[in-house]
């Protein structure tokens, strides 16, 4: 079944196909452009000759006897009536013509040139050797380009030019491929070596084609359309043209046709062969289909994103994968993924039949592909794969025995690999447990959105099902969500609470109180079932107690909340402080990190899920709404804000007045205009901050928008003050909006005006509404940031990709050095301090805390 090859590749040589090799490897000589006879059978000596391989089911290859699957295809060849230049080698041919004598074929120099020098005792590495010698060959070629007289035979050398793509001119006289070939043949093997080719594998005259290899039909299969018509591959079309012209050329030469006709046909043959190799040469029109679409010939098959390398070799497609839209479900665990039923019935997990599970798997086969949970395929021990259908079902049920493999439907608890592009992180691909759900979208816990950078505005994600025991084990141990809570970037948690769950926990731990029954109901609904804890609850339960019910009984923690106040957990009880973004949030949740360090990933993930749901359930019970009225300000505060802005306005007016009277003292290094600008900006920015402060201190604590801002769930006080009071200065590239060609931003202003209003200071808030000119200024910055984002994202993505490919195979060796794939040292100690950042707290080791912990115990 499996073939093992006990050979190791020692060396690889690239060379050209010489005419002898082409003839030798060929299995058929192509003589006719016809493809099929009247019965639709391939013509002997045609381009679809059965000796070149088979693409029709039922036919057998005449060369190897294999059928459709077995035969890989065989090359044929075409004898050309006249030699033709290979376009892709035109530059090299030119080089050879210029560097050698037209008469004696010797290199145009008397100096001895050796490309490979004898290097001391130390062995030179082959790649160094190669790079050095090709560099030298280039230098030699350049130095000999303009030699006028052959130093060996004294023949005068004429300048050879190339008229793109394949015409060679010597002093305006055209050189025919026959002449060129004759010249190249004269060059000795040593001279070929000196010009950078290895004559054993690449003689220069091979760059002029005498025979054309005809690729096997397997690389240019024809497609049968629904109408029964056959549509040939582009390459077959092109080869047909070549064969036809070649045939006509033969006939004309044999019939002794005039030289002009022969030359014309020869040029046509050259054109067809040129476009056969490369149909994107700029000097000649591309060969087209009858529909006008350009043919996709050899080099286009290899090149670019849709070519063989980037499309087929670097970007292979896989089976056992699914892709759909994602949607949130906070009721499933963090390490689960909701899989739609349709997907679960299509994707399968192979399960090997043993004595012990025979009955169970028989039931799966019995249910078949249409009832869940059933199975789609049965694999026989001989490797045959059988689809379970109504016809095959009974037979398969009967023969099922240990050694068979059943591909059963995906079920709850199976391991799946979940991914969202762009996969910039290792956390962009994580393993989840399957949870089969109704609906048609993948479901994921919103807490895992952050590492995937996912939202639900139409994002799609991919799901892969590992098919071997080893792959499943590896995914489980290395990739499951709980193993990824702490990022390797800086040792902080990437998975944490966000948005509503932060608001909920904040409100709960701040000053909420529930009745005993409510509290137990709340905790029970999120999956906390700790009767011992519930028994301790009094008639009214404090929010902190409810929160603490999730924590382990022996957990101690001291940290800070977002506003730098102490948060203390003692023996599993939150005794001081409120929970917010700084303790349970993403990227900086100190509490989560402490839990993770103390109780391990699995327990932390479980608690995290509960914390998340707790926050949401609290909001559900308590009620939480943010609305436009949140931006309402009391009259006195409104007046204060207005006053602050008015003062700033007046202050800028004063500055302008001073400047006009030339009383404004210039700041060091600035002209008086620049001083005015800098000072105005400072005043306006201060005004903006002042307004923010007024609102922050106004005592509007019970406002939903402010609660969200303080707890770190969403938005900031700045956002609030922009809505309710003043949007502030609109900045474009760090400056105020600049005056245009006519010395002003808008025609309603006078020329050279530098008042706050004319330079884009928006003194209204969004709720009050912007004046038309303010709106315009705001639109300027809005458009700029939109453009900026649209242009920067792809650029930075590309830079990141290049960085990754530059660093991809660096690794830390056992001696802590950083080495590349060849074991060259890149860094003598990893990071120069040898620290594993993923084990640190934001890049630093907190020695004090460690000492305290050890001494405390």
């Amino acid at each position, binding site marked *: 079944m499996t073939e093992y090859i006990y050979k190791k590749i020692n060396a690889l040589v690239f060379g050209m196909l010489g005419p002898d090799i082409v003839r030798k490897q060929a299995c058929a000589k192509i003589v006719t452009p016809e493809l099929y006879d009247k019965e639709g059978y391939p013509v002997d000596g045609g381009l679809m000759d059965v000796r070149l391989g088979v693409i029709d089911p039922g036919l057998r290859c005449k060369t190897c006897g294999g059928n459709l699957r077995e035969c890989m295809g065989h090359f044929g060849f075409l004898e050309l009536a006249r030699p033709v230049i290979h376009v892709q080698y035109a530059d090299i041919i030119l080089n050879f013509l210029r560097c050698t004598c037209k008469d004696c074929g010797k290199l145009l120099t008397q100096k001895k040139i050796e490309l490979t020098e004898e290097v001391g005792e130390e062995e030179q590495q082959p790649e160094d050797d190669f790079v050095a010698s090709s560099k030298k060959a280039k230098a030699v070629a350049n130095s000999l380009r303009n030699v006028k007289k052959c130093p060996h035979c004294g023949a005068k050398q004429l300048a050879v030019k190339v008229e793109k793509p394949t015409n060679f001119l010597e002093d305006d006289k055209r050189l025919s491929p026959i002449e060129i070939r004759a010249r190249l043949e004269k060059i000795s093997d040593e001279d070929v070596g000196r010009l950078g080719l290895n004559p054993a594998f690449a003689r220069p005259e091979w760059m002029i084609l005498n025979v054309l290899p005809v690729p096997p039909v397997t690389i240019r299969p024809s497609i049968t359309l629904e109408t029964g018509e056959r549509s040939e591959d582009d390459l077959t079309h092109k080869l047909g043209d070549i064969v036809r012209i070649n045939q006509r050329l033969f006939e004309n030469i044999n019939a002794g046709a005039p030289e002009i006709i022969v030359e014309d046909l020869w040029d046509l043959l050259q054109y067809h062969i040129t476009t056969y190799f490369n149909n994107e040469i700029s000097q000649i029109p591309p060969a087209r289909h009858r529909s006008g679409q350009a043919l996709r010939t050899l080099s286009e098959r290899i090149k670019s994103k849709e070519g063989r390398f980037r499309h087929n070799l670097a970007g292979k497609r896989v089976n056992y994968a699914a892709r759909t839209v994602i949607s949130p479900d906070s009721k499933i665990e963090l390490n689960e993924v909701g899989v739609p039923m349709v997907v679960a019935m299509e994707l399968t997990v192979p399960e090997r039949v043993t004595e012990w599970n025979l009955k169970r798997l028989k039931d799966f086969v019995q249910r078949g592909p249409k009832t869940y949970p059933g199975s789609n395929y049965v694999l026989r021990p001989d490797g045959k794969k059988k689809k379970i259908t109504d016809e095959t079902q009974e037979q398969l049920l009967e023969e099922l025995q240990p050694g068979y493999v059943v591909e059963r439907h995906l079920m709850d608890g199976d391991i799946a690999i979940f991914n969202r592009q762009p996969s910039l992180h290792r956390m962009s691909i994580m393993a989840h447990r399957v949870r089969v759900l109704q609906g048609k979208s993948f479901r994921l816990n919103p807490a895992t959105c952050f590492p995937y950078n996912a939202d639900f505005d139409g994002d799609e994600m991919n799901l892969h099902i590992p098919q071997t025991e080893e792959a499943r084990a590896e995914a489980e141990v290395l990739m499951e969500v709980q193993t990824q809570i702490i990022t390797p970037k800086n040792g902080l948690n990437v998975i944490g609470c966000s948005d509503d769950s932060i608001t909920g926990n904040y409100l709960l731990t701040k000053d909420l109180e529930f009745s005993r029954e409510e509290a137990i109901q709340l905790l029970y609904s999120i999956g906390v079932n700790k009767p011992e804890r519930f028994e301790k609850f009094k008639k009214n339960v404090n929010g902190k107690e409810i929160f603490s019910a999730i924590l382990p009984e022996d957990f101690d923690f001291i940290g800070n909340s977002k506003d730098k106040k102490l948060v203390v957990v003692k023996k599993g009880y939150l005794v001081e402080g409120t929970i917010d973004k700084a303790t349970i949030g993403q990227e900086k949740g100190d509490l989560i990190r402490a839990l993770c360090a103390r109780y391990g990933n699995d327990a932390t993930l479980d608690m995290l899920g509960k914390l998340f749901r707790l926050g949401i359930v609290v909001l559900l019970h308590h009620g939480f709404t943010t609305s436009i009225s949140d931006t309402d300000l009391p009259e006195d505060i409104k007046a204060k804000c207005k006053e602050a802005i008015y003062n700033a306005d007046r202050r800028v007016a004063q500055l302008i007045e001073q400047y006009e009277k030339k009383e404004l003292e210039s700041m060091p290094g600035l002209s008086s205009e620049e001083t005015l600008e800098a000072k105005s900006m400072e005043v306006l920015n201060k005004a903006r901050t002042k307004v923010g402060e007024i609102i922050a201190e106004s005592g509007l604590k019970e406002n939903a928008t402010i609660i969200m801002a303080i707890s770190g769930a969403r938005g900031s006080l700045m956002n609030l003050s922009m809505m309710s009071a003043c949007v502030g200065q609109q900045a474009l590239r760090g400056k105020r909006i600049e005056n245009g060609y006519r010395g002003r931003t808008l025609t309603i202003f006078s020329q050279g005006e530098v008042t706050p209003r004319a330079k884009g200071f928006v003194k209204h808030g969004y709720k009050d509404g912007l004046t038309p000119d303010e709106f315009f200024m705001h639109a300027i910055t809005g458009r700029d940031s939109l453009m900026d984002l649209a242009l920067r994202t792809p650029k930075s993505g590309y830079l990141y990709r290049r960085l990754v490919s530059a660093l991809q195979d660096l690794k830390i060796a056992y*001696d802590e050095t950083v080495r590349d794939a060849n074991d*060259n*040292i890149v860094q*003598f*100690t990893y*990071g120069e*301090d*040898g620290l594993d950042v993923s084990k640190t707290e934001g890049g630093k080791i907190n020695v004090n805390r460690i000492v305290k912990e050890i001494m405390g115990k």
Partner: protein
Amino acid sequence: METQFNITEHFLVPEHIKLTEEEKTILLNKYNITIKQLPMIDIKDPALKDLNPKVGEVIKIVRWSPTSKTTEFYRVVVDG
């Protein structure tokens, strides 16, 4: 062109020290490497001007590091 001042004394130029043959062998043994696996420094590097370097010698560079205050780096002298 002659430089107007001694660049090795500039604060941005780290200290370059030539290793003796003995130290070189110890270094190579320590990391279990051949001389080719070391990072390189050009023989014409201005910082090596006073050291009179030869191809194949190893230069120790002691420089400031944001993570560990000072760090040692080794480079083998190469030509071109």
